[in-house]
């Protein structure tokens, strides 16, 4: 049985549908991210799971018990969850130790046991030496660690994180991503993580739910989401991509200025009609000489329109000779083509994802 289950959850504010009919299931110990641009409903969804907001429609269940429904909900303080807030919400009137001990004390745990568990937890987040400090004396990263310790020490049934890294600087953010994943690997708490940063989601999550306009567009493991985006939004939101449209006649798929054999594509490409594909800039190869055709790959003559050197790679904009469209291609720093030069662009149908 799944740990946490959202069925048909919607939230309406007046005329605005913030969350639109969401279904999501989390297995015990799973780490799922809600990823999307601001205003997509991810924080509203998280706050409904926490019980701060009641859904307008649908239910939220945990271990088969209904927590939230439009007609009434278990209040947040009875859900045995914990949450990490965007502002961390570390109470400035309590020391680090008192902050972390708070949830345990509410659970009427003996004082000695509280001390022991708080000590252990602070050890885990490397904050033992600062136990007696007040939050105002801590850096952003340290406050973040206190928030993590305070949330995890009570062994919550579900851990909720609301954009926890958005207030940190870039280096610290990168460090804390791995820290959050490490803590998850250590404690296996079922986790829902809200973020608008795809890298954060990909580092931390077992699965990612991409949200847009109040709906979940796709839920998948990070790799699958990147390689096989199912919608235009997902393909565009996770990484950069090119969208190209082709017409299939069962034997081959004709694009603007070139064609690729149908056999090279995955089976779900329809035999007839129009189809849109997402092609990642680095899934195409740019070369000087026409490559030898093999297993369904096809090469197209292109002209280099623009380019930029970004250190780790080249960024090219190319135009197939017989076509009006332009494509973005990234290559290794070695592949140096001047603007205006002719080159060959090789497509690999298996790396082209069909967009619904």
């Amino acid at each position, binding site marked *: 049985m799944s740990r946490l289950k959202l069925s048909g959850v919607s939230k309406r504010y007046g005329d605005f549908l913030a969350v639109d009919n969401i279904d999501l299931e989390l297995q015990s110990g799973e780490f799922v991210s809600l990823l999307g641009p601001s205003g997509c409903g991810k924080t509203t969804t998280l706050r409904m799971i926490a019980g701060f907001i009641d859904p307008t429609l649908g239910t939220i269940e945990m271990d088969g018990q209904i927590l939230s*429904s439009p007609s*009434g909900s278990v209040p*947040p303080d009875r859900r045995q969850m914990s*949450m990490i*807030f965007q*502002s961390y*919400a570390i*109470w400035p009137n309590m020391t680090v130790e008192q902050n972390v001990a708070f*949830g345990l004390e509410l659970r009427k745990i003996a004082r000695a046991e509280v001390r022991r568990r708080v000590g252990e937890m602070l050890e885990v987040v490397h904050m033992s030496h600062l136990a007696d400090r007040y939050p105002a004396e801590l850096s952003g990263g340290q406050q973040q660690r206190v928030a993590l310790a305070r949330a995890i020490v009570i062994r919550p049934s579900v851990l909720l994180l609301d954009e926890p890294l958005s207030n940190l600087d870039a280096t610290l953010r990168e460090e804390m991503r791995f820290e959050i994943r490490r803590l998850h690997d250590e404690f296996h708490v079922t986790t829902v993580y809200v973020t608008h940063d795809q890298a954060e989601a990909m580092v931390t999550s077992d699965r990612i739910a991409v949200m847009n306009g109040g709906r979940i567009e796709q839920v998948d493991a990070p790799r699958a989401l990147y390689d096989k985006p199912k919608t235009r939004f997902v393909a565009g939101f996770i990484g950069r991509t090119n969208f190209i449209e082709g017409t299939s006649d069962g034997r081959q798929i004709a694009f603007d200025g070139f064609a690729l054999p149908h056999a090279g594509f995955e089976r779900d490409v329809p035999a007839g009609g129009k189809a849109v594909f997402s092609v990642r800039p680095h899934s195409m190869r740019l070369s000087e000489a026409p490559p030898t055709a093999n297993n369904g790959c096809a090469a197209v003559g292109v002209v280099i329109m623009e380019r930029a050197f970004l250190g780790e790679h080249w960024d090219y904009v190319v135009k197939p000779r017989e076509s009006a469209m332009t494509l973005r291609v990234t290559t290794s720093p070695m592949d140096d083509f001047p603007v205006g030069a002719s080159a060959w662009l090789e497509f690999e149908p298996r790396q082209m994802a069909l967009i619904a």
Partner: protein
Amino acid sequence: MTDNSLEIRALHFSGVASRLRRLDASLLLWLALIAVLAFLILNPVLRLIISSLQQTDTGHFTLANYRSAYGNIRHLQSLLNSLELGVGVALLATCFGVPIAWAISRTDMPCKAFIRLMVFAAFVTPPYLGAIGWILLAGPNSGWLNKVWMALTGAGHGIFNIYSMTGLILVIAVTSFPYTFVFTSSALDLVSSEMEDAANILGARTLRTTLRITLPLVTPAIIGGIIISFLEAIALFGAPALIALPARFNVVSTQLWQFFEYPVRVEEAAAYAMPLLAITVLMFWIQRRILGRRGYTSVTGKGGERRMIALGAWRWAMLAYALLVCALSVFLPMLVLIQAAFAKAWGRGFSLDNLTLHNFYYLLFEQTQAKQTIVNTFVYSGVTAFAAISLTLAIAYVVNRKLVPFSNVLAFLCMAPFVVPGIVLAIGFYAAYAPPPLALYGTATILILGFTTRFLPIAYTSSAAGLRSINPEMEEAVRILGGSRLLAIRKVLIPLLKKSLAGAWILVFIPATRELSSAIFLVGPNTRVISVMLFDLSEEGNFEVLAALGVILLVATVAIAAIGSKVIGRDFMLRRNS
């Protein structure tokens, strides 16, 4: 399948029940708060309006009260006098406040911190104490300034007469110019100096820039200040009573007071108070319109380093002007007041043999009433501040967290007393609660309730501002870890709000200790407060004892304000928070 649907129905039922429970609780809370506010605000104001339309004995509808209130040429003259007073004070206060605000905010005038402190001192000085200081300074012939004049010129009589409309305007303007100062300087502080730089770079000189760019940008704020000092002047009771009555003219507030002389004519007073209420509501509406206009004030926040205008030699002239204003509002009146407080007879001057502590000894040990009055003042003010803040904090919390529907009604009611002059509010309270069934006349309760209502807006603005500064996530963090809302309020919210609540308490306490215009209508023989006693002493002409009592009040006020500044941060009273 059947089981399942049964379960869903059961769940549905329990859901409805729990929703009903929740609605119940929040509805009760809302009703309770509305009831308290209706008692404090709606009922007195409504009773005021209703009783202005009632016959004294029968309670029948009548317009006779209005006829007798306005059918008298003296009463109409008082109304005109009030308008003249308001306009005069507003203009003079602007002449005092705006240049000083500009000098402090935009120029390199020396001694800024000192001038600021003196403006603050003028702000905390009750207007009636300033008036008494000025009676000692410019009373005909006996006043200090007249004595100096006579000594210098050998003239037979003095040239200043404080007992005149001009004198009254001066006295009120020197105590109310801090309003124009605060409004103007907080607007000036927000005007980026890049606005001025842009004019400079196009070739405009300092004076031109100031007159064409800077001052127009803050015009709405200046008008706001003018309106406030106008309203302050027409609502004031103490200073006009001390100066206008001996000068044998009346203003609206003193006229209202006379309706309360035996036989008390509440209904006529209520009718006569209506224009004051109407003007105040109208002026506040205009002020909101002016200040609310977007795009005019380029309040874009502070843009980097602020460059002060170098005034050159003029900065000494500017300082001299600021010191002159401070002299008129603080130095001179306070000097003569302190002299009188320690003098056997104030007219005998600054000689050593005239020094005595007897006035204080008399107040604190000999005269039993005075001691009681001092205790009353501080107890009532303390309780008032506590009550106003507890109530407004609860309301601000409910409004901020949207716990009940229509919570904005609560916020509106809290701010409503702002547009009711103290003297009008007091008459409303008198009309509503002095007669049976409550029969609160002469009790401490009616004073405390009246004060609480009067200072509800100050308390509400501070409570709401304090609450807004705290991220709701602080509380949510308690909830999600298993704590109830009450626990979150007790363990996190209140400790975090301690400082701003202390500030709010002082902000209510200080004006409550000096409140006269509503107290004068509500005190009884055993509930007198310092302000009322000062007023009575001035009628007896006992200026030495009066000055001593004033000094006690000022020392206590300054001490509390000083503690406040230390704990909460300098200047906390001069911040504009409306």
